[in-house]
């Protein structure tokens, strides 16, 4: 049970942070991408300042508080899927102003079209998974 507390609180803090910053509102994200409102730069800067200072301190320990080891990505190569995926992601983000975190957080507002966005997002994830599996 205690193992589930950190992920729950982490998700909760994440949603509140997105909400305070205004990232849950697509119009605010589009205003940022259109260079009309730089406020989200502060959000990104503050978040990266916290992780940039905090991660190295945490990773000095040999393992996390309640887990056998830290599970971190190890790759450093720049391959085609990384670039193509980031382009596709950026286009989708710029079309509507929603990325996965805010899209899921905003579901509770009950807008059927936001549910449709999330359904399409899950379909995209699923299809990528299937293609990757059949390719390997």
């Amino acid at each position, binding site marked *: 049970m205690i193992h589930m507390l*950190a992920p729950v609180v982490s998700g909760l803090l994440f949603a509140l942070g997105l909400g305070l910053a205004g990232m849950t509102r697509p119009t605010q994200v589009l205003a940022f991408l259109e260079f009309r409102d730089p406020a989200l730069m502060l959000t990104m800067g503050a978040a990266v300042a916290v992780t940039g200072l905090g991660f190295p301190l945490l990773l000095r320990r040999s393992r996390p508080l309640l887990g056998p080891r830290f599970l971190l990505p190890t790759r450093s190569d720049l391959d085609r899927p990384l670039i193509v995926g980031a382009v596709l992601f950026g286009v989708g983000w710029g079309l509507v102003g929603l990325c996965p975190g805010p899209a899921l957080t905003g579901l509770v507002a009950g807008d059927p079209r936001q549910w449709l966005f999330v359904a399409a997002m899950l379909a995209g994830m699923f299809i990528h998974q299937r293609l990757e599996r059949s390719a390997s």
Partner: protein
Amino acid sequence: MSLDILLPLLGGLLIGASALLLLGVSGRIAGVSGIVGGLMLAPRGDRSWRLAFLGGLMVGGLLLLGIDPAALPDGLPATTPIVVLAGFLVGYGARAANGCTSGHGVCGLGRRSRRSLVAVLVFMGAGVITAQLVRPLLGGAL
């Protein structure tokens, strides 16, 4: 300091704190697309923490709804076909790139990952071009 500056800063600090908590306690990266995508192929024992994070996200959304409904979207600024297309691209692209705004942006940059830096520059560039050039081009079709 005005609220226009204070709230985005405070939001960013909370997002950073959320990533510290998940890494420090569970040893995991707080990347939303990875957490969701992993649900589709993760072994049973690897699912519960993902569902717990997503549950927390939803409870956070409900709290926001209670505190200030204006914090949540009141309609998406595009037509339904574009909404579906965008959702698909966001989901497919995030998995192909192994991360999104949270995994590559907040966590990857914090780890000084080269892949994350490149991903962030590319998706920010694509997002800016799409918002500034493609959206106006779509015009009435948006």
